[in-house]
């Protein structure tokens, strides 16, 4: 009987214990992966894995510089119902700083944490910037890495306006006004990290100063111009009504005054002039050309008649090489004819023809005893007088359409530009053949060039409003400092 009693108790215990259900619920929080890290921003992927319905009061990530997560930065994502992935993001972190990050979830009054991952924020860097040569007010794009939202950009000492920071890697800034220097270091500051670009930024230079107005509100066209010592001469040609002018005006660079200089020859248009000679040209009566073959030597304000040109010359470029006058092309004797006048023998000789058509609407300059002429296809040809040979030198990089531009050499640089209705001036380094654009000229874009000169490493530009522009608009004389800011 006792045996049955114990057996009964044992069976009842067994029965009761079999009714006890084991709790198999599992809740796991995983810090899966750091999917983004920059200079000051981090983005982390976490996951809640559970086999039971769960409502977390809060979930997210903790971030700390210490592994023990003391004083952590909390990325709170709020309530979460059920399992699944979650992404947390925070910014404003210190650059180049080691952090520990872990996912957390607060459910049923308990905190669950994922495994801690170690991550280091990145250092900013500059990769490149463009343009590297421009002018104030233009936009510049700096390409780099890990720029923080507080990034500042300096052009030397001048701070630029940051317009946009895209993907922490593209900085769009507005170029500030220069502070007296053309080449300045480009500095990017993110938090306390200062970065300097490997190449400096260069401001586009060139400063124009209005020196004076041509006397008598007069405008001259198809004229000649030349320079003798500190005097700038411009004249002959016609006025805006087409009347022929028989004199020139001389601008004295010392006194900045104009004075009239009479020319002993006949009136004409389309003549040529160099520092030492003036000649050619024609009087044009409707379609009839009355060519002038007389040649004059310039001696200050005096003109000495020389033997006449052997051919007609009209709108011919002219230049002096080795003290000898060269007249090329033009519509008088042939667009490719090259003639040389030797003042010692007073003899004209014919040289190798130019390989392209030439007229005075195209520009020419002399450098190191060689002549350079711009063709209409923008190629610049070099003429070497000793070998009497032509070769292609380089190419003008922008449009020269319409011609009527200028070309003047200062040191090892030539300045070419101001073609028909263009205010653009280009600088060519004759040693490196690198082109740079200069500050555009102020004034009316429809102005033409009535003369261009150099003095004390500066350009002088006599600008004349186009014949079609009505009104009493005077001709303006500008001084251009190529390095001025």
């Amino acid at each position, binding site marked *: 009987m006792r045996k049955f009693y114990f057996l009964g108790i044992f069976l009842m215990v067994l029965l009761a214990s079999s009714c006890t259900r084991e709790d198999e619920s599992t809740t796991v929080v995983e810090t899966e*992966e750091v*999917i*983004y*890290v*920059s*200079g000051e921003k981090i*983005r982390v*992927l976490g996951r809640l894995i559970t086999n039971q319905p769960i409502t977390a009061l809060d979930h997210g990530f903790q971030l700390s510089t210490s592994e023990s997560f003391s004083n952590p930065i909390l990325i709170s994502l709020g309530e979460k119902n059920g399992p*699944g*992935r*979650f*992404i947390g*993001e925070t910014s404003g972190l210190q650059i180049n700083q080691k952090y520990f990050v872990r996912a957390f979830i607060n459910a049923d009054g308990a905190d669950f944490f994922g495994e801690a991952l170690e991550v280091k924020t*990145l250092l*900013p*860097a500059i*990769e490149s910037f463009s343009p590297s040569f421009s002018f104030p007010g233009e936009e510049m794009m700096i390409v780099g*890495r*890990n720029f923080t939202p507080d990034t500042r950009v300096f052009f030397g000492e001048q701070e630029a306006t940051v317009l946009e920071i895209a*993907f*922490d*890697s*593209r900085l769009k800034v507005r170029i500030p006004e220069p502070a007296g220097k053309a080449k300045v270091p480009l500095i990017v500051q993110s938090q306390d990290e200062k970065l300097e670009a490997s190449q400096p930024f260069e401001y586009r230079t060139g400063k124009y100063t209005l020196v004076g107005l041509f006397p008598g509100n007069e405008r001259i066209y198809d004229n000649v111009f030349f320079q003798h010592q500190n005097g700038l001469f411009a004249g002959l040609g016609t006025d805006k009504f087409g009347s022929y002018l028989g004199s020139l005006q001389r601008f004295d660079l010392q006194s900045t005054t104009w004075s009239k200089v009479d020319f002993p020859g006949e009136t004409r248009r389309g003549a040529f002039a160099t520092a030492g000679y003036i000649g050619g040209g024609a009087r044009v009566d409707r379609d009839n050309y009355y060519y002038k073959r007389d040649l004059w030597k310039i001696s200050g304000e005096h003109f000495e008649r020389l033997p006449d040109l052997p051919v007609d010359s009209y709108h011919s470029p002219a230049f002096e090489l080795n003290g000898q006058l060269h007249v090329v092309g033009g519509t008088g004797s042939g667009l490719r004819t090259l003639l040389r006048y030797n003042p010692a023998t007073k003899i004209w000789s014919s040289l190798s023809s130019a390989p392209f058509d030439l007229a005075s609407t195209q520009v020419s300059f002399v450098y190191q005893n060689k002549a350079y002429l711009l063709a209409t296809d923008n190629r610049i040809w070099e003429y070497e007088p000793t070998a009497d040979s032509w070769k292609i030198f380089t190419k003008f990089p922008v449009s020269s359409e319409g011609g009527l531009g200028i070309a003047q050499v200062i040191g090892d640089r030539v300045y070419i530009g101001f073609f028909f209705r263009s205010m653009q001036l280009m600088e060519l380094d004759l040693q490196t053949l690198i082109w740079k654009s200069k500050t555009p000229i102020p004034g009316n874009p429809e102005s033409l060039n009535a003369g261009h000169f150099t003095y004390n490493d500066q350009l002088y530009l006599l600008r004349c409003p186009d014949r079609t522009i009505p009104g009493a608009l005077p001709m303006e004389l500008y001084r251009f400092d190529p390095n001025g800011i």
Partner: protein
Amino acid sequence: MLRRLIHILLLIPIACIDPYEVEVPEGKELLSVDGLIHTGQGPHAITISRSTTYGSQFEGLIRPVSGATVVVRDNEGMVTFLEEGQEARGSYFTPTGFRAQVGKSYTLQIQTTEGRVYTSLPERVNAVPEIEAITMKTVTVPVEGETNPRSGIQLISEINDPADQNNFYFWRSGRATYLQETYPELYIIRPAKIPAPKACCNFCYITEPGSNQSLFIAQDDSFNGLSTRIPAAFIKDDGRRFIFKYRMELRQYSISQEAYRFLRLIKQQAEISGSIFDPPPATIRGNIISLDNPDEEVLGYFIAAGETTKEIYIDRAELSFRQNKVTIPDDCLTLPGASLIPPVDWKP
């Protein structure tokens, strides 16, 4: 009379049969990303589209996702912007000169025009061993009811697997070039069938993009640190390719373990044949996540890989079985990718 009546009565039940239409619930238009950047010459493409419902017939068109901002960012923070193709909407290309670098991790970021932002998980670029040699063998597959089997060539990549790391391989067929003979003298104007022989041209070089209809992947569990030979491509013999010389570029990639797992699952799903041993059809999760809703289902995978390539020239004599030559009665220049001049690097 009675016979006619029976015929008419027989027609009635026939007309009453309705075609069976499969009712498919409206599917979500899921974002789908297919992208591979590698250490080889670019540009590399990322293709983004939206899926559509598939039933007894296409319910909609797979739409390319156009106008998105797509960038690839490395683990040092260097961001590369991808530009959408003008003629391939939804395909975004890396700039010329971009190459992934071994040892770096890359993430893909996509911002759609609706402002939704997606990112991939970081993918690390692993070094890839060179293809030591490419060999080939002819493969024939009997076709029921046909006397001629289907055939082609299988390319086998020979590699020396590095022992110090776990490697996962993926192969793709690159562009192929072959010499094609046609018969312009047999040209006829259809449908009138008027003979109009053309004077030119009989022989052209045909260049075609790689056809990657099958996935070729491998992991080195069974050959770690050993020299091995693995099937890496299959080129179908269409009666045109292997008449003279055929050249193909084989591309070998070293991919991450996660990318390998993804491609293996895709391969399994693609090779379902209806057998009871097939894996059940399932959505395969890739490595693209929506930042706005991490639970959003996004399809596809962004792979960053090391790449090596090798070319193989195949002569017709090397095939143990060839399909009958296809006769094309026209100027060979009318064929897609045809040129009279061989590619500059054609050195059979």
